[in-house]
């Protein structure tokens, strides 16, 4: 079985060149028809410049952002499923998505004028989303912590409750929204990479680097916590610190991602399960594997979203849900009755 795990390690490594390939294809194809070939071989400078504009400033940042978001959502999903020992856990459970959604909706509906003028031009929604996700996660953490011990069950239940509450408030905002705000809200709640640019990637990068560093410290204690928190503590693992770090890592990575690209469902839930089918439960493989596979799948999903109704584009959340649901149902039928996560 350990030989199988080593084998799984090689499969995961092979995901890296696959990711690069998918990203190259995603940069190559698009509604405008301009590709790397046009850039290299077009007879006139104007066409080459146009191709450069499309590739370097529209498609490339979009592809990079999709890969970063996929990696963050995949790894965060794996972290949450390990922490909660619940196969349905996803990053949204600690209030990251609902907090971001509520704050972003507030700005879209109530503060459209502010968002479109002044120094916050174009940044108001993502910044509000980021702030909302951090505040709600902090609130849930404080609520669920007594005498230095955080109850993950309380976090989970309070997260679900806050999600419902936030849904109600967002509903009121939708009720009050005008047509423009309604359209923005729809795109935001279904997720889209159309606002990608290098500035946003620059802002997102430090958060993801921080989450990556945290993830390296989580894998081994999360494995032990699959035995239960008490047994992990008996073996000397820092259980409470692991819970804090896991919530911080997820908030730091998924908060900004949701704020920039909206709420993209299913990646965080499905990807870790797909990875576990190959790697088994070891988080030292599941975390990097989920990041890689999440990046590949979301980049591919965004490319499909761009192409399927070109020159218009579908919100990427529609593609991930449409593809993710059958995969999830297949997974459920496969693991029916078995103990999960496994």
């Amino acid at each position: 079985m350990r030989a199988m795990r080593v084998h799984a390690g090689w499969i995961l490594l092979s995901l890296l060149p696959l990711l690069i390939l998918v990203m190259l294809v995603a940069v190559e194809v698009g509604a405008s028809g301009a590709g790397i070939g046009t850039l290299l071989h077009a007879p006139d400078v104007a066409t080459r410049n146009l191709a450069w504009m499309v590739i370097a400033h529209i498609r490339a940042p979009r592809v990079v952002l999709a890969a970063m978001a996929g990696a963050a959502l995949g790894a965060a999903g794996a972290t949450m499923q390990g922490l909660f020992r619940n196969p349905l856990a996803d990053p949204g459970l600690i209030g990251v998505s609902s907090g971001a959604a509520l704050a972003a909706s507030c700005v879209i509906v109530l503060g459209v004028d502010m968002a479109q003028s002044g120094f916050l031009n174009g940044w108001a929604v993502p910044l509000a989303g980021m702030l909302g996700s951090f505040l709600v996660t902090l609130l849930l953490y404080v609520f669920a912590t007594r005498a230095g011990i955080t109850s993950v069950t309380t976090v989970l239940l309070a997260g679900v409750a806050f999600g419902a509450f936030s849904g109600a408030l967002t509903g009121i905002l939708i009720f009050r929204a005008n047509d423009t705000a309604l359209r923005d809200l729809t795109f935001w709640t279904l997720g889209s990479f159309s606002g990608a640019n290098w500035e946003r990637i620059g802002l997102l990068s430090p958060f993801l680097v921080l989450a990556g560093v945290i993830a390296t410290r989580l894998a081994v204690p999360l494995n032990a916590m699959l035995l239960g928190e008490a047994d992990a503590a008996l073996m000397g693992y820092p259980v409470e610190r692991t819970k804090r770090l896991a919530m911080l890592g997820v908030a730091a990575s998924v908060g900004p991602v949701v704020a920039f690209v909206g709420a993209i469902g299913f990646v965080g839930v499905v990807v870790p399960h797909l990875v576990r089918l190959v790697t088994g439960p070891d988080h030292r493989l599941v975390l990097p594997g989920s990041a890689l596979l999440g990046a590949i799948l979301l980049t591919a999903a965004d490319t499909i979203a761009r192409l399927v109704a070109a020159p218009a584009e579908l919100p990427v959340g529609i593609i991930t849900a449409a593809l993710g649901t059958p995969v999830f149902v297949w997974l459920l039928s496969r693991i029916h009755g078995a103990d999960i996560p496994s």
Partner: protein
Amino acid sequence: MTLEIQNASARAGGREIVHNLDLALAAGEIVAVVGPNGAGKSTLLKLACGLMPLHGGEIRFDGSKIGSLSAGELSRRRALLPQECPMRARFTALELVLMGTAISGQGRPMAERVAIAQDTLDRVGLSSFMERDIMTLSGGERQRVHLARVLAQLEAAARNGAPGCLLLDEPLSAQDMARQRLILQIAKMHAAHGGSVLLVLHDLNWAAACADRIVVMHQGRIQSHGLPRDILTSELLHDVFGIPDGCIHQHCSTGRPFVVPHDLVMPEDINKRETPCILQ
């Protein structure tokens, strides 16, 4: 490793569930805790390993107060085999045992930790199960994998010194008789190497056969403790367990007491007896 429990009490659900427990465990000693269901035996073990907060009193390992030790330091001084180990992930037996050595054996090369894990799995009789998915093992086999894990935890911590305190909560519950004997032999070996062992047992005969001392718990208190021959009496059986008098016998070679309740045999069955009675 010595363990001292002084005047310890604990609360759960707003009421005190164990009261004023006093117990000292010397290095090289095996102490068995017996008592009826709900007497507070598992609570005693949870207190001793720091899993449950003390409401009063003190617990010390080699003189150090339990509250002053970090989780890592504590993991090098004691290990607990809980009554139930609900692992729901598909790790191999070896991977699971290695988890137990990661913190207590910090600084040890991986090869040494693997050697310790393999050795403990071998000792619990599972050397051919190392690469097996633990979800495919029987309940008894899984319990022994967890025993190997707690043994490895203490052995990875012990460097040229005596191993720590082994706390076992009903370690025989899922085992056949041969494996029950094996586990008690492992406990004996642990004590012989200078470690101390505190184990909760339901079987009074195994407790009398292996323990240096027996502690009897009843209604959240230590009712009595001492040598097996002093503790295992007809009065104890009657007062604590509600078993009628006259069931205690003495082993002819070790002199240790053992219990054979014989009021289950119906009077009409006694007349059908074919072999001579050996219990005197």
